[in-house]
C-alpha cells in the first residue's frame, strides 16, 4: 500500500521527496493510534485500579469518564511551565523529548499483522532493544538538568536499574532468537504458526516471566518504581517538571509499557495468530477474526497485567531490586540459554523441527 503511494508520488516529485513524504505518512499512520491508545490506557489504569480498590474511578467527564484523558491533557497544556532556578535550560527542555522520541522510534519495526509493518528489518529484535536502551538518557538528563537533589537521586536510581535489567532482557531475547533462528520480528511470529501449543511461551516459560519482569523494571512500573518513590524522593526524576513537560514523560512511560506488551505478545504469545488454529470446531468458528484483533487482545491482557501488578504488589526495596536483577534473573536466563541449546540439539517438541 505504501509502495503504491510512493510510486505515485515519484511520478511528479523528486525521488527523495517522494520517499520522505511516504515516510511521513507511515509515521502518522502508526503514531496517531498509539498516542490515542496511550491516552485511554491512563483512563484504563485509573478505572482498573479503582475497581480493584472498590472505587468508581473517574466517572465525571463524559459517559463513564471516557473523556477523562482529554481533560487531563487539556489541564496539563493550560498549566504554567516552571523552570527551576539555575537549571540547564536547554537540557531541561530537551529531556522529555529524549524520553519520548526513542519509544516512538521503536514502533517502526513492530508488525501489527501479516505484512503490516513500517520497516521489516533483519535485526528487528536488536533494534527494539537498542532504541529502548536510549530511553534512559531522557531520565538521566532530566534528573541532572533540574538542579535538584531529589531529581538527581531519581535519575541515578533509574540509570542503574535500567542498565541492570537490560542484561536480563537481552538474554531473554537471545533464547527467543535461538528458538526462532532469526531476529526479524515477522519471521519470529511465522515460527509460531498453528495453535497456542506452538507459541514460544511453552519452551521459554521462565523467559516470558523474566522478560515481563524486566519490562516492568524498564518502564519503572510498580513494584519497581523506586525511581519515583514518593515516600523517599518525592517524585524522582520528574519532580521539577510541570505542565506538558510532565505530560510528555507520562506519554513516554505508557508508550513504553505498550511497546513491552507488544514485544511480549509477538515473541512469546504468537503475535497475530489465533490460539485455536487447528482445533476441531473452534478453528472454523473463529477463522473470521482478523489477525490484528488477536494481537490486540493479547496486548490488552498484558497491559491489564501491568495495571493488576500495580494494584497488587508493594514497592521493592532498592537492594532487593538489584538482587533480583543480578542474582536471580540473569543466572536464570543464562541457564535457560543452555536448556534451549540442549532442546535444540535433540529436537524436542514442535518448535525445533
Amino acid at each position, binding site marked *: 500500500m505504501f509502495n503504491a503511494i510512493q510510486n505515485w508520488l515519484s511520478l511528479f516529485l523528486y525521488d*527523495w521527496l517522494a520517499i520522505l513524504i511516504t515516510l511521513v505518512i507511515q509515521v502518522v499512520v502508526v503514531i496517531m493510534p498509539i498516542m490515542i491508545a496511550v491516552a485511554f490506557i491512563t483512563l484504563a489504569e485509573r478505572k482498573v485500579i479503582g475497581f480493584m480498590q472498590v472505587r468508581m474511578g473517574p466517572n465525571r467527564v463524559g459517559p463513564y469518564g471516557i473523556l477523562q484523558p482529554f481533560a487531563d491533557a487539556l489541564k496539563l497544556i493550560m498549566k504554567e511551565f516552571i523552570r527551576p532556578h539555575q537549571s540547564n535550560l536547554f537540557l531541561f527542555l530537551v529531556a522529555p523529548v529524549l524520553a519520548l522520541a526513542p519509544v516512538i522510534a521503536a514502533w517502526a519495526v513492530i508488525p501489527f499483522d501479516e505484512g503490516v509493518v513500517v520497516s521489516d528489518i533483519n*535485526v528487528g529484535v*536488536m533494534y527494539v532493544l*537498542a532504541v529502548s*536502551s536510549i530511553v534512559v538518557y531522557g531520565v538521566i538528563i532530566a534528573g*541532572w538538568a533540574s538542579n535538584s537533589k531529589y531529581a538527581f537521586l531519581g535519575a541515578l536510581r533509574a*540509570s542503574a536499574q535500567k*542498565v541492570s535489567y537490560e542484561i536480563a532482557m537481552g538474554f531473554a531475547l537471545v533464547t527467543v532468537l535461538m528458538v526462532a533462528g532469526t531476529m526479524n520480528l515477522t519471521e519470529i511470529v511465522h515460527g509460531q504458526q498453528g495453535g497456542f501449543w506452538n507459541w514460544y511461551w511453552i519452551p521459554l516459560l521462565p523467559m516470558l516471566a523474566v522478560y515481563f519482569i524486566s519490562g516492568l523494571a524498564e518502564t519503572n512500573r510498580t513494584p519497581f518504581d523506586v525511581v519515583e518513590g514518593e515516600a523517599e524522593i518525592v517524585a524522582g526524576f520528574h519532580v521539577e517538571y510541570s505542565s506538558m513537560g510532565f505530560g510528555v514523560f507520562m506519554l513516554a512511560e505508557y508508550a513504553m509499557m505498550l511497546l513491552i506488551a507488544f514485544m511480549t505478545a509477538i515473541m512469546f504469545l504468537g503475535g497475530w495468530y489465533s490460539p485455536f488454529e487447528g482445533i476441531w470446531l473452534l478453528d472454523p468458528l473463529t477463522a473470521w477474526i482478523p489477525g490484528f484483533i488477536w494481537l490486540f487482545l493479547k496486548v490488552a491482557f498484558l497491559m491489564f497485567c501491568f495495571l493488576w501488578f500495580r494494584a497488587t504488589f508493594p514497592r521493592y526495596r532498592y537492594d532487593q531490586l538489584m538482587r533480583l536483577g543480578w542474582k536471580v534473573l540473569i543466572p536464570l536466563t543464562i541457564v535457560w540459554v543452555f536448556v534451549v541449546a540442549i532442546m535444540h540439539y535433540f529436537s524436542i517438541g514442535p518448535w525445533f523441527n
Partner: protein
Amino acid sequence: MTFEQLIFYVLAGIAVLASIMMISVNNPVKAALWLVLTFIATAGVWIMMQAEFLGIVLILVYAGAVMVLFLFVVMMLDVNLVKLREGFTRYLPIGVLAAVAIFAMLYMVLGPHQFGLDKTGEPVRFAADYSNTEALGLQLYTVHAYAFILAAVLLLVGIVAAIALTIRRRPPHEVKYQNIDKQVRVNPKERFEMVKMNAVKEKPVAPKQEGDE
C-alpha cells in the same frame, strides 16, 4: 542526489559536528552527551554500509550502557574548570606540537591518497535478504572461535578483577549487613505465636473515697 546520499550527508554532518562539539564544549556532561550523538550518527552510517548488526550493537553497548555509566560518573564529579585551565598558555606550544604530529600521522595513514574507488573498488552491494549478523556469526564461531573464547575469558577475568579491587567488606560490628535470602525466607509462624489464655475478669478497683488521705 538520491535519498541514500541525503541520509548519508545528514548523518556524516551530524557525526562531524557532534565530535567537534564534544572536544570543544566546556561542561563534561554536555561533552558526554555530544559523544553519544556522535555514536548514534556513526551507527547510522554503519547501517547504511549494510553492517546493521555492528551499527545496532554500537548503539546498544556504547550509547546504551557504557556512556550511561560514564555520565553517571561525570555527573557526580565536581570539576573545577578554572583549575583545569591553569597553565594553558605554558603548555600550549607542546600541545600544538603533539596535535600537529598526531594529525600528520593520521593523514599519512588515513589521507585521501589511501582511499577512493580506484583503490578499494566498488563496495559490494548485497541483496535485501543478506544478513550481516549471520555472516559475522559464521566468521566468529568457526574461523575465529579460539580468539572469541579468549576474549570472553579475558572479559570475565576483567570483571572478577574489578570486583576484587573494589569490594570492601567491613567487619559486622562496624556495619550491619542484611541477609536478603534470610529475609525472603521469613515464615510468619516463626515470628508470631498465638497464646491461648483463659478469659479472666479482673477485680474491680475500689472506688476512691472522699477524704481518704
